[in-house]
């Protein structure tokens, strides 16, 4: 297992670099072009990729690391995203046999579906923390365009991440290439 964990370190590092690049796009480049009301949650995409494709005992730790790096760009912190991400990946692990990301359309639809689950979990956490439904309602109107855009980008980002994790998927996790 140690060897397998070590095998994941290099692709995880590359994945974090991709995350940093995408976060810079979301926080600097898009607002620079006037997209100031909406932010694309690329961290959710990376967490979903981990859930969909990487079957490892260290999955939860990887999500924690991704969310920790995401917290450098937001004051949201890493807690809520990690909680939602791990819960979603547990759900995905039970449904994995029913889901096959064989086409771009399926990838888009499944990404959209699990973003909605993410929204529900996060909303419950926000309600428990702040007790404010108005805030959640306002968040919902922003969630719709943001999640649709991220879902449409999912096949491209997943393709890049597939290239990064390809060797590790086949060797460390025993996948047939």
């Amino acid at each position: 297992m140690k060897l397998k964990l070590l095998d994941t370190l290099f692709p995880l590092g590359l994945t974090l670099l991709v995350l940093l690049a995408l976060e810079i796009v979301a926080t600097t480049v898009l607002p620079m072009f006037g997209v100031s009301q909406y932010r694309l949650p690329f961290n959710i995409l990376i967490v979903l990729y981990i859930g969909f494709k990487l079957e490892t005992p260290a999955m939860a730790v990887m999500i924690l690391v991704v969310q920790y790096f995401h917290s450098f760009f937001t004051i949201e912190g890493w807690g809520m995203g990690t909680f939602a991400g791990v819960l979603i990946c547990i759900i995905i692990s039970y449904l994995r046999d029913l889901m096959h990301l064989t086409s771009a359309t399926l990838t888009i639809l499944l990404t959209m579906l699990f973003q909605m689950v993410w929204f529900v979990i996060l909303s419950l956490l926000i309600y428990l923390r702040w007790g404010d439904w108005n805030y959640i309602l306002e968040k919902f109107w922003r969630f719709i365009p943001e999640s649709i855009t991220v879902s449409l980008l999912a096949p491209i980002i997943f393709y890049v991440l597939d290239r990064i994790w390809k060797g590790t998927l086949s060797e460390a996790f025993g996948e047939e290439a």
Partner: protein
Amino acid sequence: MKVLSEDRQRPKIIVNVIVLCVALFGVSKTDVKLSKSSAFERLMVDSVAPLQKSIMQSKQWVSLLFEDYFNNVAASKNNRSFKKEISNLKNKIFKYEELAKENKRLKDLLKFGEEIKAQQVLAQIVAWDASSDYKVIRINKGARDGIKLQSTAVTAEGIVGYVYRLTDHFADILTILDTKNRVDAIVERTRSHGIIEGLSNDKCLMKYVTRIEPVIINDVVITSGLGNIYPKGIKIGTISRIDRESYGITQHIEITPSVNFNRLEEVIILFFKRNELHKVEWDVLDNPK
């Protein structure tokens, strides 16, 4: 991918449960008022923020290049009218200087004491928060420039917010548009007291103003100075909507901030050396005479 065996599922479940507990602990520990980052977090923010800064600067260089060219063409036409304006403004400045002197004399008479002068740092915005839930901006000045946690951010138009997270070279500002930012405020004309909270991308809400307060549309709202974060008298915005129901004890007041957050590029950070403002407040409380 092969399905993991039960023996391999056990450590996964244990890790999942531990991480879920750690995450819940992290959520409960999140502070609304300010974020005390670890040394590693500060190092990472200081490492990635220069990238954000350089992207923002390159955009500014390109736009400046075009602006300079077009501005030069129009500059000679504007020159004459500006000269007239300058002479008018000089007259106004003279009047204001007289008023400031008079104000100081009156304050001395009332024994208000010397007003503490805040130090100012001009900072540029280099990025926005990665989540649209939070109305936070990142600036290119940090602790090395003298900025402290909870220092006030303003522009010439009015208040922007306060420093929520701080690293050596960068700072995150929680703007007044954020729902978690609360500003103690008064209506300038009626001196009605209330609390300002973020509502949307361009509106704030003024809470706890009683129904009998005679506030009207376009009344100016300023900071009250209570709460130990914002100095007194900074403009917040104007009242743009009032809903006064026949029941309840308060009225629903919407504020349009005087700062246009969509066009915000620079802010001024106000901070006080050695927490002088707090010291004066404590002195007043300790010695009410």
